[in-house]
């Protein structure tokens, strides 16, 4: 078993300062300002010392849990999982943690990859079995960047070879059309196979705390309910509609551009059994 990392408690300001949000717009990336406004920093929080796994939970680790408990994931019970096809997100028959691309698409030798198709209840069930829990959003961010703000776990200079993002596979991406062209090519060759990499593949992308894969590879569930750092913050209307309903997801995934895998980037997932082929988790515990 991999030893958990102790992250010393600290007071820090989670989220992105205004100049980072201005930088995003100056970068020419395709998303509007409202889309990132939910990560606008508002003040310091105090996080107690905690432990966190250095890697996301792997397929092999999740298999141990299933074999020990007989647990069936939500995707297995529903009989389908969400994958991105050559059209859009699709409910794919048979897609689940052990068949991430769905029935009839062979995906082998992935024991050391992060497990995917994991719903929030699935993740919390595994964590409880392992004697752990999901990290809070603040814990996750502190483990990813430390007290001092940085854009990515390794620093402020983008390097596509330090993390598993779409830019690792496709080269620099600046538009959704480029992303679609890359994915359509992958899909035509392999089907909707998640482009995950074995955990710990990018030691040069490690965070100050020593955590791997905190930028990209898989989206990671947290324990925290979706909320803004300050209720007055204006943001995208659909994001506002999930506040108090969804759970925070951090880190971006292999599907994303560099902007979606920043340490302060926030996403939110439906916790009522939904998952997809790029969604996993890592665990934490109290110190």
């Amino acid at each position, binding site marked *: 078993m991999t030893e958990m990392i102790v992250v010393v408690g600290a007071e820090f300001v989670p989220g992105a300062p205004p100049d980072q949000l201005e930088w995003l717009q100056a970068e020419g990336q395709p998303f509007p300002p409202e889309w990132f406004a939910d990560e606008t920093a508002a003040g310091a929080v105090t996080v107690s010392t905690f432990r966190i796994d250095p890697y996301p939970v792997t397929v092999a680790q999740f298999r141990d849990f299933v074999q020990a408990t007989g647990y069936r994931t939500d995707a297995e019970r529903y009989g389908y999982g969400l994958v991105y096809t050559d059209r859009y997100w699709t409910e794919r028959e048979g897609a689940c943690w052990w068949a991430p691309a769905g029935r009839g698409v062979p995906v082998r030798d992935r024991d050391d990859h992060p497990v995917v198709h994991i719903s929030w209840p699935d993740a919390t069930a595994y964590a409880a079995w392992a004697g752990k829990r999901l990290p809070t959003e603040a814990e996750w961010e502190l483990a990813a960047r430390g007290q001092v703000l940085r854009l990515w776990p390794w620093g402020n200079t983008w390097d596509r070879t330090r993390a598993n993002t779409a830019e690792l596979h496709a080269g620099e991406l600046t538009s959704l059309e480029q992303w679609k062209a890359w994915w359509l090519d992958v899909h035509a060759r392999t089907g909707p196979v998640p482009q995950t990499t074995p955990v710990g593949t990018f030691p040069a992308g490690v965070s100050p705390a020593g955590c791997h894969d905190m930028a990209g590879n898989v989206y990671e569930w947290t324990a925290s309910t979706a909320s803004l750092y300050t209720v007055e913050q204006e943001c995208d209307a659909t994001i506002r509609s999930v506040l108090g309903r969804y759970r925070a*997801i951090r880190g971006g995934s292999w599907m994303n551009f560099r902007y979606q895998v920043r340490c302060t980037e926030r996403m939110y997932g439906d916790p009522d059994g939904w998952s997809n082929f790029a969604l996993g988790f890592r665990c934490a515990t109290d110190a």
Partner: protein
Amino acid sequence: MATIVLSTAWTQGSGSKFECASGPLGEVLKRFAADEPRYRHRIVGADGEPYRYYNVYLDGQAVLRRGRDAVLVGEDSTVHIVPPLAGG
């Protein structure tokens, strides 16, 4: 007229609010997909039926997936269509 609200990530700065005729939610969504073909692939599947995996909030209240199509969208209602993965 009712209002449909999409995420700004979908609309890419081209306006995220759309007027639509009232009626049963399933019909409202299909009509919207027909009227706004650039969003069709995000709203309905290859079979022309609305996807089940996104969430719909009608005047701020979550609409359960079961029986969703028959829920009535009123003249002054606002419908938020939210993917299961929001933000980013």
